Structures are given as structure tokens and as C-alpha cells.
């Protein structure tokens, strides 16, 4: 059946309102969107790393999670869900569980690119049947906007501020999706929130229903940390993909495939200028920063196009 957002949204919610995420937060949108891709009748357990999402969606005695939820620590969502999945396999074999369960892990970029990378790598290598979803908001937002290895170059963050001697973060963003692809897992994709959520939905469905480990890297903007009005979430995402700052692609059994190619590749300023975290890049004399950022995006984009051909 062809994708239809209205139909998808009429399914029972697996992640309900009442949570305490900020207005316009990308994390909640990512979780709802990914969980919507579960087939009706299937159940799920999600392990959430310590992050904004965790502390905002399951505060004792309340929970927004209509399916299973487990949290144990910051750096171990992949290891924890691998334990749950392993136990499920055993209990399924023993005939103790009748229902069909799917296993997911959600972590922010801090919990995935940085502190949780070892745990993620281990779980990917072991081949657990799970989907790891990184909701990438490009900094440690839960602790107050510190740099992560996902923070793009020049973004102003509290541990790489803009000052007389520094221009925000000095290093480029780590290519986590590429690192995950190098594990040789069956399904890896980059996505974000497009107009009708089709891209994320289809990738999430493939990830969930591909046997073995799958990985989704979801650009999930943070209006507070990126400093743009909360209602501009979809505009920011659209600019991220149209400037090729965040290309949409998937890697199925090692085959790279672009899932969206902008009709006209926009200059990075279009994306950067909408966000307060890059404001200093538009000051007089800072033109070199824009050039540097554009060069990085162009190089990454060309490399990606080659891989996708």
C-alpha cells in the first residue's frame, strides 16, 4: 500500500503526549515517526540512553511509552537492548513469549557518536536484531549545549564558545553513518523530517523489518540549542537536505543509494543563516568561515555521490 501520512497518523500512538520535551523538539518527532513504522500487532521494546528524551518521556510514575521501555545508563543503550533481544530469543524458543517483538534503541548524538560508540559498535558486530536510532541534535542538549563529535564546525556551543580567540567548534562533524556502514550491517540510513515524513517512515520500516542490526541517523533539530523559532522545525530540516548539509541516503547490504537529490543544491548560508548558533559566521570578516563550511559540505556531497553511483 502506498505511503499515506494521514493513514499512518490514524494508527494508535506508541509514544503519546504529556511528555516534557520542549516545544518543537526533534527527539519526540523522531520517536513518533520511527515507532509509527511498526506494523500493527507487533510490539516493541525501546531502550533509551540517558538524554533529553529519556528524562522527559519516562518520569516515574508516568510514561509516554505505550510499548516496552527500558533505560539503564548513558553509554550503553545498544548493549542493554542487546540483552533484551537475547532474552527474547531465548524465551521465544522456550515458548514463553507469544507476541512478536521488535527492539529499538534511541540515543542522542552524545550517547551515540561519543560515549556510546563502543557499545553501539559491539552490538552491531554481534548482529542483534535491533534498530539503533540516533536522534542527532548536534550537541549535548540535556546538559546544556556542550560540544559533541557531531557538532558541526563553527557552531557555537558552551564548551566551544565564540570569543576573541575562538570561533565556535574548531573541528568538523564526525561521519558516524559512515562508521556504522563500515560494520557491514544490513541496513543503514540517514534521514530527517521531510514534508510528509515519507523518507523517515520508509527507512524506519525497512530498518525494523530487516533481520539483524540496522541503524538510522535522524537529524533532529533542537530549537533551543540551534537558536531558531520552534515552529521552523520543518524549514530547518528542508534546508539541511537542500543544502546537502544532511544528505538523505541509505546503504542496503553495502549498496549506497541516494534517496533525495535536491533539484537545486542551495548554498550553505541558506541553512546557517537561520540559526543563532552560526550567527558569528555572518559578521564582517568571517566570510572565510562560510567558505570553509561550504567546502566541507561540497567535498562530502561529491564523495557520497560517487558512492551512490
Amino acid at each position, binding site marked *: 500500500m502506498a505511503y499515506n501520512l494521514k493513514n499512518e497518523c490514524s494508527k494508535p500512538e506508541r509514544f503519546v503526549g504529556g511528555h516534557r520535551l520542549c516545544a518543537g523538539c526533534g527527539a519526540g518527532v523522531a520517536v513518533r515517526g520511527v515507532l509509527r513504522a511498526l506494523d500493527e500487532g507487533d510490539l516493541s521494546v525501546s531502550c533509551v540512553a540517558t538524554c533529553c528524551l529519556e528524562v522527559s518521556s519516562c518520569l516515574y510514575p508516568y*510514561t509516554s511509552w505505550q510499548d516496552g521501555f527500558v533505560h*539503564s545508563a548513558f553509554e550503553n543503550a545498544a*548493549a542493554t537492548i542487546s540483552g533484551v533481544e537475547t532474552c527474547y530469543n531465548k524465551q521465544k524458543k522456550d515458548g514463553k513469549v507469544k507476541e512478536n517483538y521488535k527492539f529499538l534503541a534511541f540515543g542522542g548524538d552524545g550517547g551515540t557518536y561519543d560515549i556510546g560508540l563502543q557499545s553501539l559498535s*559491539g552490538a552491531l558486530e554481534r548482529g542483534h536484531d535491533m534498530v539503533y536510532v540516533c536522534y542527532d541534535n548536534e550537541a549535548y542538549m540535556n546538559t546544556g549545549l556542550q560540544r559533541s563529535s557531531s557538532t558541526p564546525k563553527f557552531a557555537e556551543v558552551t564548551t566551544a564558545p565564540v570569543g576573541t580567540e575562538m570561533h565556535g567548534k574548531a573541528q568538523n562533524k564526525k561521519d558516524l553513518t559512515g562508521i556504522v556502514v563500515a560494520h557491514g550491517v544490513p541496513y543503514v540510513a540517514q534521514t530527517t523530517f521531510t514534508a510528509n515524513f515519507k523518507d523517515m517512515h520508509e527507512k524506519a520500516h525497512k530498518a525494523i523489518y530487516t533481520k539483524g542490526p540496522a541503524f538510522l541517523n535522524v537529524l533532529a533539530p533542537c530549537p533551543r540549542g540551534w537558536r531558531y523559532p520552534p515552529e521552523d522545525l520543518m524549514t530547518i530540516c528542508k534546508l539541511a537536505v537542500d543544502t546537502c548539509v544532511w544528505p538523505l541516503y541509505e546503504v542496503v547490504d553495502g549498496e549506497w543509494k541516494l534517496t533525495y537529490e535536491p533539484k537545486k543544491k542551495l548554498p550553505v548560508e541558506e541553512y546557517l543563516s537561520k540559526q543563532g548558533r552560526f550567527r558569528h559566521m555572518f559578521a564582517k570578516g568571517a566570510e572565510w568561515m562560510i567558505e570553509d563550511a561550504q567546502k566541507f559540505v561540497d567535498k562530502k556531497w561529491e564523495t557520497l555521490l560517487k558512492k551512490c553511483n
Partner: protein
Amino acid sequence: MGIRERLSGNEAVATAMRQINPDVVAAYPITPSTEVVHYFSQYVADGKVDTEFVAVESEHSAMSACIGASAAGGRTATVTSACGLALMWELLYVASGARLPITLAVVNRALSGPININNDHSDSMGARDSGWIQLYSENNQEAYDNYIMSNRIAEHKDILLPVMVCQDGFITSHAIENIELLEDDKVKKFVGPYNPGFSLISGKPTSVGPYDTVPFYFEHQYQRARAMVDSKKVILDVFKEFGQLTGRNYGLFEEYRMEDAERAIIVLNSSAGTAKFACDTLRAKGEKVGVLKLRVFRPFPMEEIAKAVSHLKAVAVMDKCDSFSAIGGPVFGDVRNSCYGMSNGPQIINYIYGLGGRDVRVEDFTFVYENLDEIIKTGKTGEIYRHVGVRGV
């Protein structure tokens, strides 16, 4: 009854794990506990267990996977030593805080640094306040027996706390000694099926590990603390039942030649054997000496210890771990605390001994007994925080 065998402490624990046949074992190799993982992996490879074995990439992930598996309602176990236990540190609290009855065989080894692979108790003693029940084992038989009993204690509906079963690295883990094993079917019957009160995969929506807010966190900590207090009775009940099955009767601690003793040494794990030998030698000369060997360190048997030492004149508490507190080791602290306020109680001193595999000889214990005699004769305790077996001290 029973099966007479000769096994190392590691193989004894691995055998107990095979007989218990847990749902999930997640483990990572570290000396000197690695052998347990070897034996167990072979059981998996040979179909001798139904367990799903997860060879994780670190001890941190081992405990994380155990937490996930236990929260999914599986009987779950792991094994580690030293730095491996230290790497699990954060998750030890998560496991007991989520009231997950995981069992952990600790093969005691010194913590780095500098790195040392030999035995002392700095690993498990460092985790003594993590909400885990801790059982200590003098030899391979006790390691086996404690391990067989650990699930019954951990999974008791009033307790639901994880359990560490500790034994001394190399000294008992690698030494082959006689042992009496239970038949597989008897272990299976004794341990029984596991019926968790909740599970992530029960078909009902379940959330484990929430953010615990100010109005609730303290109450949950109180419940965990109460469970530790209440576990003493459950431990004794399980010991009693095990004694009826095997004829091997265990208590919270073992009192060795303590009835008429005036001086005693308090010790745990393998050094108790050496202490008993020193005790026997002095007893043969008519000296009134005894040994108190702790088996259950968490929960700490405060009243029982106080009662057991109340008739003594002097006690030396042996710590195979220095807590760098400037006032003595962890066992000493708890023993002295237990005796606080006792009228005419014994003089109590502390010895740090055997760190990083330093050989612990009969003469060391004889020396300690002699010092206790000196304290009784002079009435002066002198320095209470002492070290034995260190060159130049």
C-alpha cells in the same frame, strides 16, 4: 549422596552455572575469571546448557546486557574480576536499583594501579555499597555451594537484589581440590523455575528504569535498603534448606574454635584456611585462640558479629584491601562499628594483608595472634591500623 570430583574454583562455578542453566549469560574475559567463561562457552557449544551466551565487548556492556536480559524476565548471570568489576561499577547500582536479581561470580583480584593480576579483595570491597548481596568463599566447595544458593536469595520476592559470589583469584580459582557436587536434577529442583514479577516482553506495556523524581527517589532507595536488611533472614532460610539437602550447613559466618577463645582473627575467603591452621597450631600449645570467617559481608551481620566477639579480649580484623581512609579497611570498619557501645568488649585492631597476591603465611597469622596477646597483657591497643607482610614495616 553427591558426586565426588576434583575441580578448580573456576570450574566449580562454571559447573554450578551449567546446572542452573540461566537464560542469558553476558560476559567478557578478564584474568583470573576468564576460565569460567571458557568452560561455559564450551557448555554452550556442546549443547549442555540452553543459555543464550552474549560475548560482549566490555564488562560495562556485560552488565548492561545482563540488565536488559533480566528486565526482560530472564535468569541472568555474569562473571568478572578486578578492573572488569570496576568498569561495571555504574551499572552495579543500576542493577540493584532496578531490583534485578542478577548473579555475578567475582574472582577476586587486585585493582590497578599499578596493574597487578593477583589476588586481593579491592575489587569486590570497592563495590560493597552498591546494593549487591556479597557472599565470600573459602574454597572451591564454598564457591560452588554459594553459587548454587545465590539465585534463590536474589530472586526471593521480598528481596530482588543481585548477588555477588566471591572467591580468591588463583588461590582457589585455579587450584584443583576435592569437591562434592550435587546431581544436576537436585540443583534444578533446589534452584527452581524463575518467575519474575514483571518483564519487558510480557505482552503488557512495561517501563523499566524511569527518571526517578524527587517525590519518589528517596522512597525507592529506602525500599532497596530495607530489602538488604530483610535479606539476612532469607539467606539463612536458603542456607538451612541447602544444609538439609547436602549436609553442608552454613551460617552468616563460621566460628572456628571460638567457644572459649580469648583472641580471634576475623577473615574472609581463602586466608581463613591459613588462619585456621595457625589457630590449630597455637591451640595445640594451649593458647585460647579462634577464627571467625565471614561468609555474608552484605548484608553485614552486625548483631551476630557483636555477639560472637563479645566474650573475647582482643580481635584482629584482617582486610585484604586497603580503603585508603586512614582509619583501616572495610571489614574492620564494619566489625568495629558492630561492637560500638559494647561494655567490656574486646580490643579491636586492623591488619591490611596480602595485597596484590602477597603470600599470606601461617607465620603471619601467628604473628597477629602474638600481637593480640601483647595487647591483652599490656592493656594497650597501640596503633590500630596496621599492615602485615609489607617489607620494612
